[in-house]
């Protein structure tokens, strides 16, 4: 679920950059990502794997994500209804988890600034509900999509 490159690769490049007098901000960012992932461990990935396994049956997370992507590509989420709402909730949880590890400042900034009126829903309505209220009936999170 975590996007490549992995934390070990980022740390190796950060060390190289520091040794060569490179951009200290970039090195610090790489180290921070690695630290957040170390602190979280495998739990977020396993949580997602279990959620996917409920839809598709047991399997490796890579294979289950392929099933999910294929299902969406085939149009399974095109029509409004509970199926689309459930998929959206799943996608929000994945995205917020990744962003919380890769760029938590972005997440915080987005949640602190509602978008301009009339353009779209508050970004916090999706990810925060799906993260904080895991296990709530997905349909209650709202349909979304115009």
């Amino acid at each position, binding site marked *: 679920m975590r*996007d*490549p*490159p992995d934390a070990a*690769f*980022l740390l190796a*490049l*950060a060390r*190289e*950059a520091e040794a060569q007098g*490179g*951009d200290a901000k*970039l*090195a610090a*960012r*790489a180290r921070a*990502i690695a630290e957040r992932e170390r602190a979280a461990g495998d739990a977020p990935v396993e949580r997602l794997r279990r959620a996917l396994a409920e839809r598709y049956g047991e399997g490796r997370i*890579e294979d289950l*994500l*392929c099933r*999910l*992507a*294929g299902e*969406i*590509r085939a*149009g399974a*989420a*095109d029509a409004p209804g509970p199926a689309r709402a459930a*998929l*959206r909730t799943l*996608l*929000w949880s*994945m*995205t*917020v988890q*990744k*962003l919380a590890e*890769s*760029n938590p*400042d*972005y*997440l915080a*900034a*987005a949640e*602190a*600034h509602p*978008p*301009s009126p*009339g*353009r*779209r*829903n508050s*970004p916090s*309505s*999706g*990810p925060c509900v799906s993260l904080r209220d895991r296990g709530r009936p997905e349909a209650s999170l*709202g*349909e*979304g*999509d*115009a």
Partner: protein
Amino acid sequence: MNAAALRRYLTEATGARSAEIDELRRLPDGAVQENWLVAARLEGGSLAGGWRLVLRTDGATALGIGLDRAAEFQVLRAVHAAGISVPQPLLLCEDCAVIGRPFFLMHFIAGAAAGERIVAGELGGERQALVARLARELALLHAITPAHPGFACLAPPPVDAAEARLEQCARLLAADGAPHPVAEWGLRWLIRHAPPPAEPVLCHGDFRTGNFLADAQGFTALLDWEFAGWSDPDEDIGWFCLGPWRFGAYGREAGGIAARAALYRAYEAASGRRIAAERVRWWEVMAALRWLVIALRQRDRCLIGGERSLDLALTGRRPAECEFEILTLTEAA
């Protein structure tokens, strides 16, 4: 960078009696291409005198999309002639024997393209004036249509720019090989909500904070024309407003500089064209998807191409920002 070879080239290309290079160093801007400052003194010839120039050449590894340096040089020359504020292009060298890669030279313009410093207010001057100036530059650019001479280097205008971008992004996404469920969600939404085609105009293709120069007083020049092409004018507006290009100033939706409404007002006044918010919204979803697939290719320059760049590696972690935008923007308005 081979300074001696560059000195010889400058002498021959300008007909100078001699050329000296006093300074040659890589500039920090440019994630895809390389930009080098060249401080040169030429005796005689078409560029006689002392000059601060910028040499722009291919990066160590290629992104695989966008214009090559020769086409970018032609575009830069044509937009400069059209009155858009860009560095004046001077010389194009396609002979790889000189520095190993094709390159072009243009006049150096003072300022920095650092997005964080611009949104923090250290550069760019007063924010409302800056966004108004950017809107005027964009309106001037969008007044250029395919009938305009000087852009023969560009691919013909697509019948439907939205459809063309959709096809490109779907192809690049499929080429990545890994599953991207949120990107697939975005693609399906874009297909379902595609706008009617607009008359194609010249678009910058990467018009955003970080791709223009600014000094403490304000805007100085628009840079990085490698993604220029004929498209829907709302593509540039949607790209400019995309969350990742606000450099942390998320609440200022126009590039982290000002409110979206300020950009729209200034652009409408300068162009005479009314902006339809729903069309921009579509192009902003497209911008999120397009930046996602470009980020994957940037990452691969490091993971597959072998370029040991921490910046490129960290770009591999940026798709989550695009996924956040796709899900946010496709919420019911």
